[in-house]
């Protein structure tokens, strides 16, 4: 083992990280027969590990490095870990979501006592977190792939926590298939790359990529982009995401949607800016198109979803799209030698990556709290929760405003930066590319408008008006540790939305390490100025001015002598006798205009079944109405594919006769063929 001087701090933090996760896993398993202890031990270990991870990320972003080489742990090059700024940034992203998730999980998993194995959950959660941290620190092929698989399998087992449900089994199966299809792409891509560059060491790939032949580089790019894209959940590789994320316990959904899919982004940034050097311009163009499609389709599917956790999962597809808009734009800028602009796009992208890792876990935890309190994920059965769960409501509202990219919260900052970097594309002098950028600006604008509508629905239908079911009417506020975890994230949303400048400086340094040029961002103490006064914003002043004006209006009203009295009365309803929740707008009704406008995409199934009274057609006994959007991807793309696989598998059965001597013959033939090939 070799340790470079001056790395003792980061090394100790890494040991503390792994120690925390290890202790959590071991503790959870040892206390398996006492669920309460197991629950505390597992998640307290995760919390310690996550806090050390946070410190490790901060140390790395401010210039700390890491270089660990343990030759004996793994074959083919050993366990090799290292940390540059990009790795450190993603370590920080993991930690930001992991700390509150661990706190939240301590009480949230209480509901699973006696139902699921808490030892399994504790083990899985710690392995999942450790796997993610080690993926971004991996410095050779085998370390990367082993940790990638650890992360995928651990999350698979966590998804299967409620394996008794049919939906969960389906979700787990699709997740397993998709993640391994992606893994296969990564494996082939990595092996081709290692063969072409003659090194398994990831940090040597950038320099060695020049020796790669043209077609081989394109092939490696396509393979790795497919593998990482499947993990990130870009359209059309997203089908597993809206099934697997909602099926998992909410603190795991938070980690999967908030962080795990970002490791796909990590991989895409590595291939776009690091491992393969500066790419062909079609690479960036392809990523940009896929990103725009993912963003728009993700939010459109989220909009018509009435399962709260499914809605959030689809919105993750949307946000992955937004993040990748910056990655694709950065790659395109780089291929046109506009490195400062590439850095700006990358800063926007990284900023949104972190922001999404804050508000998406917040929203998933809010959804988890609602599910905890009402026992359902269906928004059509909710309503009125703002009066029954006032704190959760405020946190969910903060998350909703932040994800809709509205000031003064953090989502606004990253989306503002994203717009500026896309707008500056007119510096490229190629009209076709300019037009592509203009269309992606339109896509981003449509996405942000639809996201606002989507979260008006998510918050409004869930928390406002009258409860639509007995469960919702009986809901109670969740315990303080769950609220505390959400509060922490809500504060982070506000802080990064009001005072992001110090943090943006670190992101700029990260981007500059990859592109070789700093973004043209100037920071006064509170103003962000992009590209020589092309654009400026002062997040702090927006917040201060809004607060001051909000305080000013009621004062002025009093001064000019307004009537400040008020009384309550029932909602106006055209003279009907009493108000019930049946008069309220439902989630389906809210989404209906969108369903009609975009019916080409949704291809909705509509069924209306009216049972009339036998004596008169003017009296109705029951009305059944069903209106569901179909998934065109599952029907048109994955349906034929799975039929093909089944057909091939059916044919392959001929080979399996069950005769042992025939199998021995296969082995012999395989051996001879291999020897002939090797010779």
């Amino acid at each position: 083992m070799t340790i470079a001087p001056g790395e003792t701090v980061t090394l100790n933090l890494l040991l503390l990280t792994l120690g925390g996760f290890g202790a959590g896993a071991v503790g959870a398993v040892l206390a398996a027969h006492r669920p309460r202890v197991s629950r505390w031990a597992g998640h307290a270990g995760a919390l310690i590990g996550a806090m050390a991870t946070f410190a490790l990320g901060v140390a790395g972003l401010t210039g700390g490095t890491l270089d660990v080489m343990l030759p004996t742990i793994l074959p083919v090059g050993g366990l090799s870990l290292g940390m540059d700024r990009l790795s450190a940034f993603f370590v920080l992203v993991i930690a930001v979501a992991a700390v509150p998730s661990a706190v939240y999980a301590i009480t949230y998993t209480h509901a699973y006592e006696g139902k699921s194995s808490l030892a399994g959950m504790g083990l899985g959660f710690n392995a999942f977190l450790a796997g993610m941290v080690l993926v971004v620190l991996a410095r050779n092929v085998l370390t990367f792939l082993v940790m990638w698989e650890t992360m995928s399998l651990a999350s698979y087992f966590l998804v299967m926590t409620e394996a008794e449900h049919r939906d969960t089994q389906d979700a787990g199966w699709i997740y397993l298939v998709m993640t391994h299809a992606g893994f296969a792409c990564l494996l082939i891509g990595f092996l081709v790359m290692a063969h072409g560059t003659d090194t398994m060491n990831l940090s040597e790939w950038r320099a060695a990529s020049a020796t790669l032949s043209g077609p081989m580089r394109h092939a490696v790019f396509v393979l790795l982009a497919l593998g990482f894209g499947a993990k990130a959940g870009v359209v059309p590789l997203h089908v597993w995401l809206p099934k697997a994320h909602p099926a998992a316990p909410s603190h795991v959904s938070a980690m999967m949607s908030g962080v795990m899919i970002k490791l796909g982004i990590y991989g895409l940034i590595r291939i776009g800016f690091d491992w393969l050097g500066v790419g062909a311009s079609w690479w960036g163009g392809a990523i940009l198109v896929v990103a725009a499609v993912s963003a728009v389709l993700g939010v459109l599917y989220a909009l018509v979803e009435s399962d709260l956790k499914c809605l959030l999962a689809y919105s993750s597809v949307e946000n992955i799209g937004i993040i990748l808009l910056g990655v694709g734009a950065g790659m395109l800028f780089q291929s046109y030698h506009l490195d400062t602009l590439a850095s700006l796009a990358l800063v926007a992208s990284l900023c949104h990556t972190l922001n999404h890792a804050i508000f998406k876990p917040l929203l998933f935890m809010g959804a988890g709290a609602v599910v905890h309190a009402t026992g359902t994920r269906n928004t059509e059965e909710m309503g009125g929760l703002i009066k029954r769960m006032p704190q959760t409501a405020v946190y969910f509202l903060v998350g909703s405003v932040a994800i809709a990219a509205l000031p003064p919260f953090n989502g606004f900052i990253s989306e503002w930066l994203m717009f500026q970097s896309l707008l500056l594309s007119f510096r490229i002098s190629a009209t076709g590319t300019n037009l592509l950028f203009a269309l992606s600006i339109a896509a981003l604008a449509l996405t942000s408008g639809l996201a606002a509508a989507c979260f008006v629905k998510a918050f409004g239908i869930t928390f406002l008006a009258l409860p639509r079911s007995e469960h919702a009417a009986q809901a109670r506020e969740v315990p303080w540790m769950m609220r505390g975890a959400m509060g922490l994230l809500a504060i982070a949303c506000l802080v990064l939305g009001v005072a992001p400048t110090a943090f943006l400086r670190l992101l700029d340094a990260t981007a500059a390490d990859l592109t070789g040029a700093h973004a043209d961002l100037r920071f006064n103490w509170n103003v962000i100025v992009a590209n020589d006064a092309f654009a400026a914003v002062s997040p702090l002043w927006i917040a201060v001015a809004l607060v001051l004006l909000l305080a000013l209006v009621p004062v002025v009203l009093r001064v000019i002598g307004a009537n400040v009295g008020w009384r309550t009365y029932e909602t106006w309803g055209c003279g009907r006798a009493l108000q019930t929740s049946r008069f309220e707008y439902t989630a389906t009704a809210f989404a209906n205009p969108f369903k009609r406008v975009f019916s080409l995409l949704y291809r909705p199934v509509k069924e209306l079944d009216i049972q009339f009274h036998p004596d008169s057609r003017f009296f109705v006994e029951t009305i059944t109405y069903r209106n569901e959007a179909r998934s065109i991807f599952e029907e048109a793309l994955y349906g034929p594919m799975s039929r093909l696989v089944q057909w091939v598998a059916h044919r392959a059965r001929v080979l399996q006769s069950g005769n042992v001597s025939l199998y021995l013959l296969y082995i012999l033939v395989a051996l001879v063929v291999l020897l002939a090939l090797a010779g």
Partner: protein
Amino acid sequence: MLIQILIETIQLLIVGLGAPFLVGLVRRVKARLQGRRGASVLQPYADLRKLLAKEAVESETTSWIFRFTPYLLVATMLLSALLVPLLTTQTPLGFIGNIIVLMYLFLLGTFFLALAGLDAGSAFGGMGSSREMAIAALAEPTVMIAIVAIALRAGNTGLDEIVRRGATDSLLLLTPGHLLAFMAFFIVALAETGRLPVDNPATHLELTMIHEAIALEYSGRHLMLIEWAAGMKLLIFLALLSNLFFPWGVALTVTPAALAVAFVALVAKVGTLAVGIAALETAVAKLRLFRLPALLSGSFALALLAVISFLFVK
């Protein structure tokens, strides 16, 4: 410093006090065009004062969101009034945000207004919210593409800078992209401020209301704030259209004379646009909700054409 505070105060006064006048002007001109006498231009002031004197009645179903929204709405409009270059290209607080920030401030107001619509639990409010968000979402791409066109011409996204460069460009109106962008932005402004043919501000027919349906449960000072904010939004959009696309008369230097000229020019330009809106609202009927996407995609096409024309003459 004193001058700067003075300019911002004047901006607040123009938007805050001018908004009811503008609403009254549009109503009056519309009445005249329809052969009615119409109420006085000052009628909206009397309406707002009447609402202020009344007690607020709230639904028992509502939460703090319902009471908070009117104040937030007014705050976002007043903040916008501080950012927009109404009289001069040296708006003291212009540094707070560029044109994109302005659009997101409007969206913040719309977001909370839609939540408030859902809060009372009436079907009308929900319907209004759903439709309001649908229109806002579908208008958003046009807004941004129109902004791309403007930024391409000016090489900047700062509001002051766009107006300043426009004012020094004598061939401005001869640029086809400029006029296309204006038309696109005008249609979007109609949609965003709830005017015909998108929404009818005079309707109280339940099934066609959008903005009015959301405001249905409001009364007293809360209703006054909502109405006032709607008026301010209209004024800000018309002032934006005037100064971004026809930047004549805007003071490039801060002198009393230049500011006076700028004020007269602003009144003339916004007044002309208001008469234009009144004429349009007399001539066209409200579109069915599901015909609106056609209108908005038409304006999107105009904006995109504007961008393309700027790309080719670049």
